[in-house]
């Protein structure tokens, strides 16, 4: 139980975030967004803007800043006149002050030609849908085993339903922000808010034609990301371009309103799930077919149906992904991309199967457990789904549940309980780290890992202290800097597992080197886990969990409030219970938001997201989260990494929305298959 090591700095405001670095002589950038949904920029009139005192430079396609690599359309700013979606950055201004920059941006006259009506509507029968070569990151788009269609048709009990989830936006507290400074030697320093300094370093180096070592990315504290900062966004490129054009350091933070078009979001989905089972609830066929969107700028194909490949046993199986390029902002990672919307559909369908068979929803999931990964046939490194379901049911008081929908009423409130499974892969990437013994008896451990609020810094320090058999107080954990050994991105719940392995190996190597007194220059050891990972035995490695929710639905208004929620997880060894619990309940809270309120509303005429601030885009407020608790089962898994740890950043959200939705069905008898479950959706059925 260790508090965040940097907790005091954060609550007292001394922890520095990207925009806050006291860079001398800094100027400010403001970006202009396309006001058409599809077309071409005919001209950018900069006269009025340039007349404003304090304006230093205008960037646009009229005079495209030179880039060495333009292969990523989202990052190739101002290189083309094509407008691919409304809100795309089409120009920018640099000025002495932020206010001047914004006013000048407003004065730019962007004229458009060949404007066309944008196509922004995702639907399951869109003629542009195609099968991607792979889905994020490298999964096959389709899988099939047995004779799924025939087996489904011949099953005693069948569920066949279509589920939709809306676009959702990550909305970290700290916006995407960068300070860029070109140094006298031609190198570039970036104070940047991101989920991986090494990734930003290599991407930006390529774009600006620099050797990797000539780009220095500084990111010790990051105010959230949820995946949106996992890959560099236009803000970094814009800041670097602007600094070059102005000949001064430039600060650029993406205003909240502009984040909705330019910093990624979760694709909306249309999912058809078919479950065929015997009267005993044992699955015979599982079919999960997904339609989702990407932009015309680049393909992002999300792996929505992949959890269905792992979760339950069934001899006949089919999963497929189809994606359509629309005139929309480019979707990207958002907390458990793929698994989160996919598991809403699958786990709601499982609840429908429970209702259809009359089998208790917990028991139904237990009955369909599997000891081998159903599609790959690999053994699981560990799998404790059943333990999570059983322990969760016990702790939550599931046994007293009257299975009849609408059975429990308290005044004008309808009360119900729901359950859903969770699963998320236990990813791990190659990493490097150094550990150093200092002459004063302390130790310095370095890795370019990112702490985006997860407690990663603290977990890594604990891992180092344990490996070195030293006090935590003697460990100096240094992360968030691209000059440190190269690290994988904080994403895919792979941070602690991947970085931690490198820290363990570096500390082990250091212990091997320590022999008597430490010389004045210290003793350093380093590690690279690339070979170790390649040599790992083949296992299906996943975390599992069970989510329980109790909701009340107001019979007069259709308002849904989650009274209590419990998640029980099996995620290997928990390194630090304090921050782990925060990760779990944070994910569950985000799942409550997904279930009940989060949606980015697309305007069909103009082609942009209308919900553009936190007053319009609703995430749960404190009053919505009454009693959310997380627990975990002891799990010892020798096939993961030296810590025995699985990632925990994402397992908390997976399944949470389905648990809430299933509880709403239990409370009311109404099945809402289209998220979010709002009064507008629920009331007409009540």
């Amino acid at each position, binding site marked *: 139980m260790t508090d965040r090591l940097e907790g005091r700095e954060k609550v007292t405001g001394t922890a520095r975030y990207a925009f806050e670095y006291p860079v001398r002589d800094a100027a400010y950038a403001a970006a202009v*967004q396309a*006001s058409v949904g599809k077309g071409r920029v005919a001209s950018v009139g900069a006269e009025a803007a340039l007349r404003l005192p304090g304006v230093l430079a205008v960037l646009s396609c009229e005079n495209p800043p030179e880039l060495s690599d333009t292969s990523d359309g989202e990052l190739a700013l101002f290189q083309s006149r094509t407008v691919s979606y409304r809100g795309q950055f089409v120009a920018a201004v640099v000025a002495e002050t932020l*206010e001047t920059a*914004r*006013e000048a941006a*407003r004065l730019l006259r962007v004229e458009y030609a060949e404007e066309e009506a944008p196509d922004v509507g995702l639907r399951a029968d869109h003629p542009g849908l195609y099968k991607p070569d792979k889905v994020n990151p490298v999964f096959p788009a389709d899988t099939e085993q047995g004779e799924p269609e025939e087996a489904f048709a011949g099953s005693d009990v069948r569920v066949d339903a279509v589920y939709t989830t809306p676009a959702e936006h990550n909305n970290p507290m700290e916006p995407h922000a960068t300070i860029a400074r070109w140094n006298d030697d031609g190198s570039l320093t970036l104070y940047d808010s991101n989920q991986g300094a090494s990734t930003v370093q290599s991407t930006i180096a390529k774009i600006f034609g620099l050797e990797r070592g000539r780009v220095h990315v500084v990111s010790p504290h990051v105010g959230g990301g949820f995946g949106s900062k996992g890959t560099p966004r236009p803000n970094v490129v814009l800041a670097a371009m602007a600094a070059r054009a102005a000949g001064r350091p430039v600060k650029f933070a993406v205003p909240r*309103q502009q984040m909705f078009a330019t910093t990624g979001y979760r694709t909306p989905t249309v999912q058809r799930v078919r479950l065929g089972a015997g009267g005993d609830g044992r699955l015979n066929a599982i079919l999960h077919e997904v339609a989702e969107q990407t932009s015309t700028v680049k393909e992002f194909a999300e792996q929505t149906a992949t959890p269905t490949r792992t979760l339950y046993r069934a001899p006949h199986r089919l999963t497929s992904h189809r994606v359509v390029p629309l005139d929309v902002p480019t979707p990207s990672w958002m907390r458990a991309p793929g698994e989160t919307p996919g598991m809403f559909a699958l786990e709601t369908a499982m609840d429908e199967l429970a209702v259809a068979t009359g089998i208790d929803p917990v028991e139904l999931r237990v009955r369909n457990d599997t000891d081998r990964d159903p599609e790959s046939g690999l053994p699981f490194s560990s799998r404790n789904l059943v333990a999570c379901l059983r322990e969760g049911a016990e702790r939550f008081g599931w046994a007293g549940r009257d299975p009849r929908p609408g059975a429990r009423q308290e005044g*004008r409130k309808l009360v119900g309980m729901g359950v859903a499974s969770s699963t998320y892969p236990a990813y791990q990437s190659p990493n490097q780290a150094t550990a150093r013994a200092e002459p004063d008896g302390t130790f310095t451990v370095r890795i370019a890992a990112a702490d985006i609020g997860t407690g990663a810094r603290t977990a890594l320090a604990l891992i180092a202290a344990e490996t070195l058999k030293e006090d935590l107080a003697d460990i100096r954990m240094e992360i968030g800097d691209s000059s440190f050994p190269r690290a994988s991105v904080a994403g895919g719940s792979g941070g602690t597992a991947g970085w931690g392995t490198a820290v363990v190996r570096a500390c082990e190597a250091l212990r091997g080197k320590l022999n008597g007194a430490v010389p004045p220059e210290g003793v350093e050891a380093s590690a690279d886990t690339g070979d170790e990972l390649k040599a790992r035995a083949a296992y299906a490695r996943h975390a599992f969990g069970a989510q329980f929710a109790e909701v009340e639905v107001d019979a*007069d*208004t*259709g*308002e849904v*409030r989650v009274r209590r929620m419990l998640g029980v997880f099996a995620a290997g060894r928990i390194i630090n219970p304090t921050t782990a619990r925060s990760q779990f309940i944070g994910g569950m809270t985000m799942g409550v938001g997904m279930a*009940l*309120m989060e949606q980015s*509303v697309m*305007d*069909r*005429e*103009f082609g942009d997201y*209308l*919900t*553009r601030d936190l*007053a*319009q885009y*609703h995430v*749960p*407020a*404190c*009053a*919505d989260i009454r009693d959310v608790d997380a627990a975990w089962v002891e799990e010892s898994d020798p096939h993961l990494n030296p810590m025995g740890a699985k990632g925990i950043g994402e397992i908390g959200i997976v399944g949470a929305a389905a648990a809430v939705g299933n509880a709403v069905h239990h409370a009311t008898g109404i099945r809402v298959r289209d998220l*979010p479950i*709002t*009064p*507008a959706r629920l*009331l*007409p059925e009540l």
Partner: protein
Amino acid sequence: MRPFAYERATSAEDALRRHQDGAVYLGGGTNLVDLMRLGVEEPARLVDVAHLPYDQIELRPDGSLVIGAAVTNSAVAADRTVREGHPVLAQAVLAGASGQIRNLATVGGNLLQRTRCSYFQDASKPCNKRAPGSGCPAREGEHHNLAIMGHSDACVATHPSDMAVALAALDASVRVRGRGGERTVPIEDLYRLPGDEPQRDTTLEAGDLITAVEVPVLGVPSRYRKVRERASFAFALVSIAAALDVDGGRVRDVRLALGGVAHKPWRARRAEEALRGAEATEESFVRAAEAELEAAEPLRDNAYKVPLARNLIVRTLTELGEES
């Protein structure tokens, strides 16, 4: 944000004098400053009136209240006389915004806040309220939280204030200092329906300064109920302010106002009319609600507001009936 001048008024007369050449009064700034950042409002001059001596809540001997226009929302909600004598008002204020916003927002500014329609807030799109004659994309676009009553082809926006809904039910008036001196305007006459001039939210004239709100004595049970997707910090899908006086099983008096349904706080006069003298039963409440909502003209995606408003009227009156 466009450059602007900032001036602090020292008195109502001073404020009036300074209100010229594209000036706008500034209260707590919780709405106006947002709109300036969005480029929706572009005043050349802000005349700060938050520091004028209108920061007291006065309880008059008859139990009525005079609430100064510069009193913060937090102070209204926390005031003991308000909570005891006009609970509907305290509840409405607490249902609005967040604690941080209520600490800054003022009564005068609250009443004059502008719609949260997403087209109005986005200066890159047409909007008859923001740019008269440019069109109303909300009518065919995203309107699931917009008006079902009293809207026009030109505008389907709703008024966002919770406080105004309670004040409408309370028969409150605003004191206005204008170029022609001081006058009193009933809340119902302060706000207007959009018609073909949706850019005008109120009947105030240029330079008019709200100095106080007068709230008559109530003396019967009252309640504010606000329906929304999340439990706080969200605008109403539909809200209701109600007060009910039952005597011998019959309705002696009733006040009903709805929020989130129209361009202004919607005083439900037809429902009130149907209820006065009627038996205080659920059947009467249903009849009254339906009488009111006959006038509803929901748009494509907000028809749910009609049963929502009906249920709210019936449920709130039933609960108040049980209290009286």
